[in-house]
């Protein structure tokens, strides 16, 4: 009996290896040996003729044979499946170096990007955002801000006039007055917006953007101004040295200009910083008592600081743009870089 088992196994494995690359032949062979009426089943039938001891031994041998053959056939079949699948997938191969497909998103204007960034820094400090008109009353643009009529301080800002009374605002500072007329302190406000000056050359655009900010409360000091602006500049430009210089704007006193270490040369002196190692970035100061009087705040009760900065200048420094005019030419080759 054991010889017959051995013979059958040899015969089946021979057949398997001959048919191993053809699914049909393999199935047939499997059926022939392992089917319900297959050779292995036949062998089992023959067990009846044996003695009980022999039957047990032979039965075990046949069952083992069955398991081995099943494994061998299944393995051969699944190897065949694998091979075919591999072949099919291979045919589906793409050139992964071809460019991806996507709908290109549009870009924000660099001035908008910087404005958003600055707005976010200040709203994070609890400042609110306010706006005002671009064609503004002389009163708001100048007089209420302590620029008397016929005063040379008005020469600091070349003005476009719409009429005797109306001007294109030369700064966003009038929003200070508009807000303070409507609200009582405490106030923390920034006012971004478009402003206009009658000046056009390499470094001046007749239209540009400013962000005005101010804080008014009972005990706001110059030391507070320094801290808030230093914090702001460090957020905007990263860790940087900041210095405050006295300067003059009619609506603040003491007035200051704020410089940061030149971001281009790191302070060694270059063309951008005119060799000084510093870049002027902000105008600021303590709100002038006359401005408080113009909005009926008691200057003895309230103090506050105000500041303003040019968005284009920040954009040029942060993005390394050398020519101001690029910002308003709307050349897609430029705009799409941001």
């Amino acid at each position: 009996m054991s010889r017959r088992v051995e013979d059958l196994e040899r015969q089946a494995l021979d057949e398997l290896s001959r048919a191993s690359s053809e699914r049909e032949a393999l199935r047939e062979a499997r059926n022939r040996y392992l089917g319900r009426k297959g050779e292995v089943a036949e062998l089992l039938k023959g067990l009846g003729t044996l003695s009980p001891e022999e039957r047990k031994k032979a039965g075990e041998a046949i069952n083992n044979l069955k398991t081995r053959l099943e494994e061998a056939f299944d393995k051969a079949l699944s190897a065949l499946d694998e091979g075919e699948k591999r072949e099919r997938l291979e045919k589906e191969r793409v050139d992964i170096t071809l460019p991806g497909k996507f709908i290109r998103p549009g870009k924000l204007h660099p001035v908008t990007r910087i404005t958003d960034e600055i707005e976010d820094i200040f709203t994070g400090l609890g400042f609110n955002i306010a706006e005002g008109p671009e064609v503004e009353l002389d009163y708001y643009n100048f007089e209420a801000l302590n620029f008397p009529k016929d005063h040379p301080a008005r020469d600091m800002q070349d003005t476009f006039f719409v009429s005797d009374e109306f001007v294109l605002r030369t700064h966003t500072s009038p929003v200070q007055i508009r807000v303070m007329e409507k609200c009582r302190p405490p106030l923390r406000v920034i006012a971004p917006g478009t402003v206009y000056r009658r000046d056009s050359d390499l470094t001046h655009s007749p239209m540009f953007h400013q962000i005005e900010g101010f804080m008014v409360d009972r005990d706001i000091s110059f030391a507070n101004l320094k801290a808030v602006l230093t914090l702001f500049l460090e957020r905007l430009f990263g860790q940087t040295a900041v210095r405050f210089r006295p300067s003059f704007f009619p609506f603040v006193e003491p007035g200051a200009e704020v410089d940061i270490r030149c971001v281009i040369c790191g302070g060694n002196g270059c063309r951008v910083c005119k060799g000084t190692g510093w870049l002027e970035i902000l105008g600021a100061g303590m709100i002038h008592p006359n401005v408080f009087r113009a909005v009926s705040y008691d200057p003895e009760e309230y103090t506050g600081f105000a500041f303003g900065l040019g968005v284009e200048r920040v954009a040029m420094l942060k993005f390394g743009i050398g020519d101001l005019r690029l910002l308003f030419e709307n050349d897609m080759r430029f705009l799409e870089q941001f």
Partner: protein
Amino acid sequence: MLFSYNWLKEYLEGAPPARELAERLTMTGTEIESVAETGGGFTNVITAQVVECEKHPNADKLSLCKVRTGKEELAIVCGAKNMKPGDKVALALPGAELPGGFKIKKSKIRGVESQGMMCSEVELGLKDTSEGIMILPEDAPLGVDFRTILGADFMMEAGITPNRADLLSIRGMAREAAAVTQAVFKEKEFKVDEAGRPIAECATVSIEKGAPCRRYAARVIEGVSIGPSPDEIKNRLEAHGVRSINNVVDVTNLVLLETGQPLHAFDLDKLNGASIIVRSAGEGETIATIDGKTRNLDPSTLVIADANAPVALAGVMGGGGSEVTGSTKRILIESAWFEPSSVRRASRKHALSTESSYRFERGVDIEGVTRALDMAASLVLKLAGGKAAKGSIDMYPEKYAPAEITFRTERAARVLGVRVTTDEALNILSRLGIAGREASPGIISAMPPSYRMDLTTEIDLMEEVARIFGYNNIPTTLPIAAMSPGETAMATALRRSIRSLLSGSGFTEVMNYSFVSRELFAMAGVKAGKGVELLNPLTEEQAVMRAGLIPSLLENMARNLAWKREDLRIYEIAPAFVPGEGLPEERWKLAGLLYGNRYEPGWSFPKDAVDFFDAKGVIERLFEGLGIEGARFEASGHPLLHPGKTAAVKLEGRHAGVLGELHPDLWGRYGLRKPAYVFELDIEPVEKASGKGKKYRELPRFPESARDIAFIVSEDVPFGDIYEAIRKTDLKTIETVELFDVYYGRNIPSGTRSLAVRVTYRSRERTLTNQEVEDTHGKVVKTLFERFKAEVRVS
């Protein structure tokens, strides 16, 4: 203001080096914008002494000299003949750079090596002509940088803010320099030798009552000889941007620069009646100013007149008739104080800004009037000779009285955030020439000097104390504030959402000037012809505030096409300006433009161009993103747009904007090869319609059932009407109506089109029976037939 460091030093003892001074001035509020070294436009030139001179062995016209520098002896080939052994010279060493970029190197001249060059004044940029090389004084030290011998100067450019009129002079700047450094300010001494007859015999001065002239002083000098000024004075004036005229005029200009007091010299023989009258101009009077222009006057302008007519625009410019010329023998020098606003008005009225008007407008030291006059007179006597009349005229009816300002140290601590003691404050004030005393504990009573007209209130003194104390010595202390959220204005938030949605649709943001040409303005298609015009535009291209954004976007398109750009999706958010009762109305708008391919040209995207429905889709997507429902598009017209491809956008029944294809008539103007599409929306109705806040709608619990209908209908029937009609057939059970095919052409009668829609039925309360769906669908089919004469093909 441009000023010379060396001139400044004439008023200072112990002045710090130029660059150090510049830094210190900048940090105390007088911004020094540049420091330029002058009279030393060369490097590597040292002093040396000629040891011997021989003829060049190979050239008759050249000499070969031995020159010692103190360290070594050098052989120099030289073409000049004027030097002899023992002469000190300026020697350019190899590596030296002379004005004009001329570089010196070792070189062989006619076979003999020259180890440098002895320089002439021309070669050093010191003079325009010179004969031979420059021979230095015998006592010049050997081997030192020649620039130190020249006493090289530094020209400093200061940005003087309008409040600091007192710094518009050398003397004022020196006073400030002394206040902010360890240097000591020292006055110059001068004396007028009054050797002539009494001034009353020479001239008279009167000031009209109420004239804006608070002081008028004059001196007379007889027997002057007019001629050129010495080089020293010419150079000084020229270095400060003032042209040299003659010795007398130069003196007035020099004293103006030095003291900040504008002066004017009249030819006394040309003043009728030898009299000066300070008065308002009469109606119809004219004056020919020294710039050659005749100016019409009226009573708003203050003039200096003689017995007959105006001879000067007070504080602005003198008249040609009385100016000092080569034949002038007797002069009257004016030193006066005019009201700043009066001078400013005259200067603006006559579009004439001078060194004089610039200073008067900002405020001249009324107490310094006679001092400057005396300085000028003494200089004229020195340079032009003559005899000064005995005495001077000084009309000064109302003397300057300093104001007393109270300074509270407590208040200063509150404003500055740092405590400056009373002693410190007093010390700072006194350095600035402000007389102060402690009136009571912590309270200072201070009197600013007459030249500090900007100091009138306590806050002015606080600024003075702070800037000398040093801004960088004030601590940085974050404020303590009640917590409150930073709020973004609704408009800001909406604009941000719009930008982000449009970025997602592939649109890039542009920014155009708000002012445009009249032509571009008119293109915006505003009904009222007049816009918000500028009185003083820079150019005609920027004359009117725009009333719409589309024309600017079309310009952007044209420029980008010129830059070889094929596809464009751009937008802008900005206000349009509409004249109103008071201030113009500023209507914020969003405008966009699409041109070219629908997709970026790539290896696998279809290459078809955008059409009307891409533009419409942009707006629909935007509304979807902003949570706006129920927008309506109605066929409309617009002067810039194709009459058959223009839609008005309605939100909540209000006009909200327009969209359409650019009119084919305009293709040529912009060099188009394909149609362009534009849209413009008013932000305000968009803002109203958005921001309603999203609310969850319950998910459907019962199944839907969809039916398709295809039908042929006249082209004139808008799909929008069909859509509304179908929806309204049964608002309860018709959930959606989707158009999925539009077909024109073969098998369809001309003038008609075939449309196919899918209608989805669903009830929110129960499952609809097949019969219910069939019934409603039947009604839809009937509606299509009855209302639109639609021939239903499949249903």
